[in-house]
């Protein structure tokens, strides 16, 4: 894939004002994942093939309706990166055999939820990075198997109530560090993003457009349905995930991890937790000081380590 000369995103004002992704998709109102996807699409443009795994976004395209203006291929829950491999290889073969012009070449983009990225699709993703596949991967991480009603996944944060962790303390496990796992493969690019910080997101998309090889994005995807909050709060919840330090925005490039937005005065995590029904048990009927403190302590420890480095 020949690399385009990127637009420069300096201010919010530089964000695209025309939207490419078709409206009318069956994603929930207030979907934080769709918010990331439409920005990605606006910037990458129509010369793309999205290779989709099973998840909420399986339903982006339901015959005969598609929001895409370029290419889209649905595969399965476990093998979207392998689908991307087949598409990319085919494009390269056709380019090499002069059956496709450079003008007709397209960027290959995998989209999966956290269920596929953190679980079933992990070996396919790992192997795509091993093979240095030239592709972009967007994981919309809503921290659970959202399309089936928000059962916990390996991306679910500690203490969250899900439909398979309804007990009084919520999910007992801890969210897996997918960023570190991906970065350990030494791909061209890995970044965490969130739609609630559009400029950071746009800059990272711009950066990955100038690179080749595996370019990996994990977008925290606030989910009104699965996290139990009012849809209008989607951006607010996302912003608080960053400002409380729960969702560090960072990127991995050339062997280095760089934090792209370090909250100067981190808000207490409870500002983030309190808005979401999945953490209500930490506040009602009684405040669970120990539970909140544990989550705060983990976030504090993370940032202490980062700021000391």
């Amino acid at each position, binding site marked *: 894939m020949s690399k385009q000369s990127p637009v420069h995103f300096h201010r919010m004002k530089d964000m695209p004002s025309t939207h490419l992704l078709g409206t009318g998709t069956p994603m929930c109102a207030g979907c934080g994942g769709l918010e990331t996807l439409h920005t990605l699409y606006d910037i990458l443009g129509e010369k793309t093939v999205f290779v989709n795994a099973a998840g909420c976004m399986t339903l982006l395209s339901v015959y005969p309706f598609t929001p895409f203006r370029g*290419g889209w*291929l649905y595969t399965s829950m*476990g093998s979207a990166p392998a689908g991307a*491999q*087949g598409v990319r290889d085919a494009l*390269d073969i056709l380019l090499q055999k002069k059956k496709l012009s450079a003008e007709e070449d397209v960027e290959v983009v995998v989209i999966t939820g956290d269920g596929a990225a953190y679980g079933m699709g992990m*070996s396919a993703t790992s192997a795509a990075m*091993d093979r240095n596949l030239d592709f972009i991967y967007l994981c919309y991480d809503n921290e659970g198997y959202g399309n089936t009603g928000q059962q916990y996944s390996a991306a679910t944060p500690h203490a969250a109530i899900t439909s398979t962790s309804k007990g009084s303390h919520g999910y007992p496990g801890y969210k897996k560090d997918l960023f570190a796992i991906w970065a350990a493969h030494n791909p061209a690019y890995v970044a965490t993003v969130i739609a609630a910080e559009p400029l950071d997101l746009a800059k990272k998309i711009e950066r990955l457009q100038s690179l080749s090889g595996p370019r990996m994005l994990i977008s925290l995807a606030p989910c009104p349905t699965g996290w139990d909050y009012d849809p209008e709060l989607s951006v607010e919840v996302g912003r608080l995930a960053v400002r409380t330090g729960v969702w560090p925005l960072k990127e991995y490039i050339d062997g280095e991890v760089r934090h792209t937005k370090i909250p100067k005065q981190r808000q207490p995590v409870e500002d983030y937790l309190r808005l979401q029904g999945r953490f209500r048990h930490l506040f009602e009927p009684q405040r669970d000081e120990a539970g909140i403190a544990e989550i705060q302590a983990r976030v504090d420890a993370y940032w202490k380590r980062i700021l000391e480095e």
Partner: protein
Amino acid sequence: MTAKLLTGNSAAAWGARLAPVDYIPAFPITPQTEIIEDLAFWVDRGELDARLVTLESEHSMITAAAAAASSGVRAFTATSSQGLLYGMEMIYTVSGWRTPFVLVNVSRGLASPITLESDHNDIMAARDSGFLQIHCATCQEIADGVLIAYRLAEHPEVRVPAIVNLDGFYLSFTREPVDLPDASKAAAFVGEYDPENLQFKGNTPLSQAMAVLGGGPYSYFRYETHLAVERALSIYDEVIEEFAATFGRRYDKIDAYCMDDADYVFIMLGSFSTKARDAVDSLRAAGNKIGLLRPRLFRPLPAALLRQWLRGRRAVAVIDQNISMGMGGILHSELATALYGIDKAPLLASYIGGLGGRDISQQEFFAIADELNLAYQQGAAPPVRLLYTRNEMTEMRKLQAIAQAEHAEIRQAEGKS
């Protein structure tokens, strides 16, 4: 004499080379691995202008093959046994994408228990997937079968992927003389890969393989895939005529041997059928008018042709190298379905054998023929026979004695206390 000695695996690789293929997603598994090793060797040496990529699983490998075919290139892949099963979600999925490619399956018995040797339960698991199935009995047929499979799968009225099946060990690692088709003639026979309207490129809107809502649209796509697979029956005849005219070898949908005056018939798939040929010769020499049918094309099943061949025969032995637990031989069931209700239907007897590479001896073929004779005289088919000899059971008992030695001691000790 242009023939040379090639293993079945090598013949399969040659088929892919001669098509020629553009893209080979691969994953190793015994007894298939040599196919991708040969192809990798040719690609490395620049003898084959294709890209070979080793995926991390068959599930991914089949996804990549179909995705590449959906993006405009001719893809080839190969697997075996557990690998086919690991990829089975995608086998069923990608046939519905309606993009043709060829997968060679080297048949090997399924776990459990684990075995490396051949039977047909792996390929039977793909029976209802929407892939075409061509079953080979010789190494020659494998090389030719890959070319025929491409031509058939890529036909505009078919457009589904195809499996070319060969038996592990008996063909995969066995060298036989193979007359390789001339490269330019082979390429001309298969033709250029035409992606039709399924190809991703800039400024072309194309979304593929999505969900539908409701049973109406779902049924439409499923029915159309079925009708396309059925269509391959008549297209096969056209393809095979042209193949015969070009290369001088004819591969009818059903390979029929000594069938003209046969009262009795053996029916089976794959390479063991050549053993049955020998048995037919010996039985005929002994005065038994018996013949052999071997379906090459198994999906679509040439049911009308089977009826045509079998109407008026006295008795038929279906010899299955597979077992559907709780039901029996799968080819037997299919034959019973095909023959149900026709006039002058023969008696149908079911034999299961050759599992996990177990041999079927000439004596067993002779004994089966005798049972068919008896069945005809008595007017009733014998019960299903699971081929197993006293000697095999004796050997099995020895293994069990070792395996259960301590268990027996413990039981004994418990009994004493």
